[in-house]
């Protein structure tokens, strides 16, 4: 099992593609995995909603209110780590059900 759990680097590159496609400022600055997207103003409160929609649809995860924090969304790497944690915990809860 575990085939649905994306590898971290693969997930990061898919998130990066989405960020580059959706946020023009990200293209201009050619953001890296560790670039702070909040401080640089690449992502605003409306942009976060687009990202949440993308993560939920693309990776079939659920994003709760409490997940919406700077720690989880600050950079592409942060999002990939958050996604990884969520996929693992969802996988566990499915396995134990």
């Amino acid at each position, binding site marked *: 099992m575990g085939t649905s759990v994306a590898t971290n680097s693969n997930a990061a590159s898919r998130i990066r593609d989405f960020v580059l496609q*959706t946020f023009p400022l990200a293209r201009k600055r050619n953001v890296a995995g560790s670039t702070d997207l909040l401080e640089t103003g690449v992502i605003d409160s*409306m942009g976060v909603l687009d990202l949440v929609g993308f993560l939920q649809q693309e990776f079939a995860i659920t994003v709760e*209110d409490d997940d919406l924090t700077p720690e989880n969304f600050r950079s592409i790497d942060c999002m990939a780590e958050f996604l990884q944690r969520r996929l693992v915990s969802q996988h566990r809860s499915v396995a134990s059900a």
Partner: protein
Amino acid sequence: MDFLIHHMLRRSAARFPEKEAVVHGNRRLSYTQVLQACRSFAFQLRSAGIARGDRVGIYLDPSVEQVLSIFSISTAGGVYVPINTVLVPDQVAHIVRDCGMKALITTPEKLETLAPALRDASPLQFFVATGNTNGHAAESTLPVHRMQEMLAASVDGDWQDWGISQDLAAILYTSGSTGKPKGVMLSHANVMAGSTIVSTYLEISERERILAVLPFSFDAGMNQLMTAFQQGGTIVLIKFVFAKQIIDALLTEHITGLAGVPTVWSLLANGGILKHSFPDLRYITNTGGAMPQAVLKVLRQALTATKIFLMYGLTEAFRSTYLPPEELDRRPTSMGKAIPDTEILVLNEAGGCCKSGEVGELVHRGPTVSMGYWGNPEATNRVLKPNPLLPPELGNCEKVCYSGDLVKMDEDGFLYYVGRRDAMIKSSGYRISPTEVEEILFQTGKIRQAAAIGIPDEVLGQTVKAFVVAKDGADLDCDYIQAYCLEKMPRHMVPKHFEIMSELPKTSSGKVDYPALRRREGL
């Protein structure tokens, strides 16, 4: 006597020298510190060439520097022009050129992004940059002054104010139903009347700690700063992306007052506001569009100790109406009544007063009626007109503001919003001109005809829908068009929906038939 904007700062610094005036993250400045920094900065701005009435732009995110800039420009005798940082470089360049801006205060990073757009025919003479920077911006030959040094400079000799209350103090750029954004001119008297009036009905005092989440380029956002400084309260600045950041600030900073637009409240209502209690939060105010009833319900459940004020205003008249909290149960969909020292008229096409229940245009009279649009007397004359109800003996001594908003009044004098008289779109508190969206769509070079309209959206009020006709034979890639828009306009302007048509409906005179497009959407 206090008659200029920075006199409010001077007075509060005399009353509460050590009190916290402005807070941003770990930075906390007392009124004395703000006053001293503003005196130095104003002195340096004059030395750098700012003369009475010169326009100085502020293109900064929420920051202590932003607050210092506003009061320093006023102190120097200049006119401050706050620019929303969501605007893209071309739009900033429009504002710079339109108001003949002499200096622009920004960050080194933003300056680098802006420089190419400001290269041609810019009236700018110098930049002021926050943070660390060298003497020149990339791609610009203009001098760049360091704000840090200007704030710390010593002031020699006596300081003299140049202006009076009728002088221009600020220009706020906003969109109408056509063309590019126009600069609404506010006098010192306008801004100070606005803060006195709002402080009166919100009962704002020196005990207030106000969290500023709205940009100062919005009249309601600027008003928060002005009421705080006028009353000697504290303004807390925040750059937020998540509801949690606002909630944390409300709790840790013991915030007593918060103003927002419907999108802010939706964010909070969906972002865990019910999990906390806010004993310090004395009032909240909504402006920039109707608050969705479902969101209002959550807020009332979460904020049991908080008074909720629903407000209405347009930049051209600063603030107009508010619904007292005790009326919320009886008239939850009302915009309320006129603010103090203000009269709201509902006028029909013939210029007479509407009967109760009859739909007419909201016309505002009072001390916050602006000075009109910078450099645009024709547009000004369409919005600011002589009061039609004055006896002829008084002549044209008073200008009133025609809002373009259609409303009706009930028998008790409470107002209800009906719609716009023109094609202006309003989304998440922003005013959007359909023609500005259409012009950018044409710039793609792939479109022969385009029309933008607003369609209802639960959270945003409205979103933009674009009807487009491809140039002959071309295939239209809506993803490409949308990506192009994202480059050329801020997110709130970008059409959410596209519809490709073979031809747009036309009126008998050959113009785009917007009502027909709205009917297609069931509007």
